[in-house]
């Protein structure tokens, strides 16, 4: 692979990045074991030993995969790019915030996992009230969120300092995108922080008797939908900034890349009601308004698709590719750093189309809370995002540890990618199909007294389990690859940061006008949420006491 004599990555920064990446993959391994076992229970192939519950495993799987794997990986990846592009190393305060954030998140994760495994919090990662978990479960989640805030502040600080010492200059694209990603995260987590700190912790300790259920769900989904964009945007950073360099091309347009990130910031938060379309207590008008706002993210998605394929085509033609699709052949298919993220991009096309179905307010009635939804996010986050993150590891670990990727590991990486795609084809494909037939999500093995509808679902559940086992092989292989990368031959690997193509126009300055974008974000949130939330707080519905139903 490419080794050049550029300035090596700061070793101390590298330790912080590596600590995050390794923790993320530790969570992936444990979450993967839980996921495979669940699949086998659901498929009717095994029964768990008496003291392990299906829903305990499901809670552990969801929390470890969706919250811990992603957040750790994202913080680690963003810190690496911030160190690389915003000044060449992390400032002392940034590094300190990064480490304190890491410790807080880790303490939170450990408490959370222990509480879940003790069976005190089988409430799944959405922890819907009035199911009442141990207060320490909510405290654990709060610690994870606060830790991630500190890491976010570190990124903002580094960016602000860079702007101060580079007055009038356009910030590097990676740094800009990291700031947007963390800004999205900070704003979105306010919702879940309010839910946990103001509503759930006092209620769970017994300091207050009851909880406003619909309000808690609304605050959760204020966070729950932007959460998926928090997973997606770092993958987009890889696609926009890293991939052009890896294929030997240029970034198609700096300004369009920034514009698409701004649109994601604006339109990923005021949309949470599309997760609550099927519930009472929220009027049609507000649901429809948020459905419209949800669909606005189609625009930056179309922009991204165009930019990426423009990069591929321009690069191919500059290498002499002929014909309408000749450029496809010259892409580096045998380079895992390209191949894994590219499969992620490709799968994002059906994944996104499924998302359009979910958000449409009538079609949602067909798929709501069925396995279709589970199939959907196993394509988006567990394939598009996860494969991109896997692809990043093959150069990021060598960069931060001063090593090089060997051809053998590259080949294992390609195999890992293929295993993942095959496993997901079986698992997510069956989930989508059986979801359309009505099979509910988050439900242990049962044939509903052999009801003909439910019996018909069984072969699909078995196919899901087979997919899950294949995916677990993929998890084991990526863990093996990471261990091998840690022991790869010494050498310097260049941090792949793409450059903007010469033909592209200068980036307009308003794209870095943060006051403008934050104000617009807040205005959209106020329009979409203020009246319904005032309504929910002011209504006379008596609250609910807590229940432990597991």
């Amino acid at each position, binding site marked *: 692979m490419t080794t050049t004599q550029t300035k090596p990555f700061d070793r101390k920064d590298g330790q912080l990045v590596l600590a995050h990446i390794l923790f993320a993959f530790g969570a992936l391994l444990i979450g993967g074991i839980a996921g495979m076992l669940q699949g086998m229970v659901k498929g009717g192939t095994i029964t768990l030993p008496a003291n392990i519950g299906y829903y305990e495993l499901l809670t552990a799987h969801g929390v470890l995969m969706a919250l811990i794997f992603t957040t750790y990986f994202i913080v680690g990846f963003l810190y690496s790019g911030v160190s690389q592009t915003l000044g060449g190393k992390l400032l002392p305060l940034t590094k300190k915030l990064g480490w304190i954030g890491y410790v807080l998140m880790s303490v939170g994760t450990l408490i959370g996992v222990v509480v879940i495994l003790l069976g005190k919090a089988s409430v799944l990662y959405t922890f819907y009230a009035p199911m009442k978990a141990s207060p320490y479960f909510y405290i654990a989640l709060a610690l994870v969120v606060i830790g991630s805030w500190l890491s976010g502040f570190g990124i903002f600080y580094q960016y602000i300092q860079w702007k101060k010492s580079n007055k009038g200059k356009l910030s590097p694209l990676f740094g800009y995108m990291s700031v947007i990603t963390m800004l999205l995260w900070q704003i979105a987590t306010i919702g879940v922080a309010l839910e946990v700190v103001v509503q759930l912790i006092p209620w769970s300790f017994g300091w207050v008797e009851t909880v406003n259920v619909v309000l808690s769900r609304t605050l959760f989904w204020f966070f729950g939908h932007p959460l998926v964009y928090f997973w997606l945007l770092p993958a987009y950073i890889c696609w926009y900034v890293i991939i052009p360099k890896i294929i030997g091309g240029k970034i198609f347009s700096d300004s369009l890349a920034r514009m698409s990130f701004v649109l994601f910031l604006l339109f990923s938060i005021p949309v949470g009601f599309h997760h609550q379309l099927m519930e009472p207590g929220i009027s*049609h008008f507000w649901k429809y308004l948020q459905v419209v706002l949800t669909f606005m993210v189609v625009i930056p998605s179309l922009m991204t698709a165009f930019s990426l394929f423009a990069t591929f085509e321009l690069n191919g033609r500059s290498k002499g590719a002929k014909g309408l699709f000749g450029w496809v052949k010259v892409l580096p298919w045998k380079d895992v750093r390209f191949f894994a993220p590219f499969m992620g991009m490709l799968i994002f096309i059906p994944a996104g189309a499924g998302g359009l179905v979910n958000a449409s307010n009538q079609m949602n009635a067909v798929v709501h809370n069925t396995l279709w939804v589970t199939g959907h996010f196993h394509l988006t986050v567990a394939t598009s995002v996860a494969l991109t993150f896997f692809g990043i590891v093959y150069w990021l670990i060598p960069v931060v540890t001063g090593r090089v990727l060997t051809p053998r590991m590259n080949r294992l990486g390609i195999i890992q990618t293929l295993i993942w795609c095959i496993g997901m084809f079986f698992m997510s494909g069956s989930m989508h199909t059986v979801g359309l037939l009505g099979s509910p999500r988050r439900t242990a093995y049962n044939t509903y007294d052999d009801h003909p509808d439910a019996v018909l679902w069984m072969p699909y559940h078995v196919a899901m389990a087979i997919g899950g086992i294949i995916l677990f092989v993929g998890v084991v292989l990526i863990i093996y690859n990471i261990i091998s990368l840690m022991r790869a031959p010494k050498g310097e690997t260049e941090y792949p940061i793409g450059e903007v193509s010469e033909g592209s126009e200068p980036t307009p300055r308003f794209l870095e006008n943060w006051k403008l974008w934050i104000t617009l974000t807040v205005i959209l949130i106020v329009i979409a949420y203020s009246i319904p939330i005032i309504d929910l707080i002011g209504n006379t519905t008596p609250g609910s006491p807590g229940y432990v139903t597991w």
Partner: protein
Amino acid sequence: MHMHKLEKMWLGIGVSMLAVFLVVLGVMTFSQGIAPPNEHVHHIDPTKVNETAPFDKPELKQIGDNEYEAVMVAYAFGYDPMEPMEVPAGATVHFKVTSSDVVHGFEIPGTNVNVMVTPGEVSQVTHTFNKPGEYLILCNEYCGIAHEMMKTTLVVK
């Protein structure tokens, strides 16, 4: 901000399709009433469901010519009324459901009946059952250890 001509066309087509789609969705929602279930209908004290009418007597009752109202309570882990309900083919059933404990789901596979049942609120959904058969009613929102056992049936003759 400069955009490539092809990109303008690409976005133009995409955005126009989106606009048409959203207009159709809006017209269907507001003028034809093909909307997601239930506005805010009324509140109920979730701790007093069993003593609040009509939920003190969950039952299926005929309210018109082949038209029925099913008043139901979802709880961990089942639905009241417990005995299977029976309606003739072609019957329109108005379901009125609330929860006496945690959040539940209310789904009838093979139909578009699929609503959340949240404590403190009453979920309403209507369906016309044209095809005879035994319809499964199940909970599709995780509600506790025996969530997968939570079901009842509706028989259409």
